[in-house]
């Protein structure tokens, strides 16, 4: 799964803040953000992550309301993405403490989907994937770590050769 030569995998996750970013409750999260992002940037398989105007992170982007933080990135494979998200000690420690920073959501807060190798998704694409996941559950077009899907054959074939069909 996740042929590294043909497809990339994109990821969006959203979080509803428990308190404003500059509040004491979020201080540990804000303090760790730079380091965790640096770990991601240097991690094997990392391709791209969403940044705001300042260019450091995406915390000032609030496309769906002032309380909703977004985080989006692209990786060469599901395995490399999973290794960073769940097998890096510092990132896992932030995930363990996420309830100090983010409110619980009674629906999916993270979605994964396959993209052609040259493609960088925008937030509209990402939120449409999240909508698909929330509506239909995990499927080939939008899925979760718990129920992953292999890259679609058409996408893999398109990205592999034939430049005329790649865009």
């Amino acid at each position, binding site marked *: 799964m996740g042929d590294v030569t043909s497809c990339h995998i994109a990821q969006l996750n959203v979080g509803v803040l428990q308190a404003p970013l500059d509040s004491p409750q979020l201080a540990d999260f804000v303090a760790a953000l730079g380091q965790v992002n640096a770990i991601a940037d240097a991690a094997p398989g990392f391709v791209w992550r969403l940044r705001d105007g300042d260019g450091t992170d995406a915390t000032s982007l609030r496309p769906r309301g002032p309380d909703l933080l977004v985080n989006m990135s692209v990786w060469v494979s599901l395995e490399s993405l999973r290794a960073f998200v769940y097998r890096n000690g510092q990132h*896992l420690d932030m995930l*363990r403490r996420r*309830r100090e920073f983010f409110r619980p959501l009674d629906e999916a807060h993270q979605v994964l989907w396959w993209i052609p190798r040259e493609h960088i998704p925008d937030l509209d694409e990402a939120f449409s994937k999240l909508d698909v996941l929330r509506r239909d559950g995990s499927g080939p077009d939008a899925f979760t770590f718990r129920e992953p899907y292999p890259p679609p054959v058409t996408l893999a074939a398109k990205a592999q050769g034939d430049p005329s069909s790649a865009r």
Partner: protein
Amino acid sequence: MAVLDDPVRLRLYDYVCGQDHEVSRDEAAGAAGIQRGTAALHLDKLAAAGLLSVTFRRPAGRSGPGAGRPAKLYSRSDAEHQLSVPPRNYRAAAEMLAEVAEVTGAEPAVQRVARRRGAQAGRAARTANPSASAADLVAASLAAQGYQPYLDGPVMRLRNCPFHVLADRHPPLICGMNLALVEGLLAAAGAGGLAARLDPQPGDCCVVVCPSKNSDS
């Protein structure tokens, strides 16, 4: 698991699993008090069902021409099996409860409960063995709970995650629960010089125990 219905086969399985080495057909037959051919039949059935792993090796000390054919050796399979009679599905229940904890935001409560459970185990271990060193006590208690601790320099790593399947599907919740459990255990065992933290390594539990930074003990 119907393959274990036969009492002779079950006895052979128990015997092989209880050994710290790979078991030959001769040894298993002797231990079960049955003919070698019968033992071979049962052992191969267990291997076919995925309950035992098979390797071929010459007995120690015999090599080169004339050493004979390598013996077929059996050991417990690494695959995870869940067996209950009558059928129960605690894993499905655990999965659902884990999801409930996530969507309701109960992670802090899960960690509090885990910390108390760990503390209970730590106090019990301390009571049972008042003179043991904190490190020995912690290792014994973790071993009793299935973590399979081992030393990697000054760091105690845990070879087995007792909640592996659940941890794989709900890492933030279950790794956080594990960490709180081990922290509770350390505190109650009087292991002030030790601290637990998350440091996932391939194949291991994500929690490690190491000397705490503000201590020289």
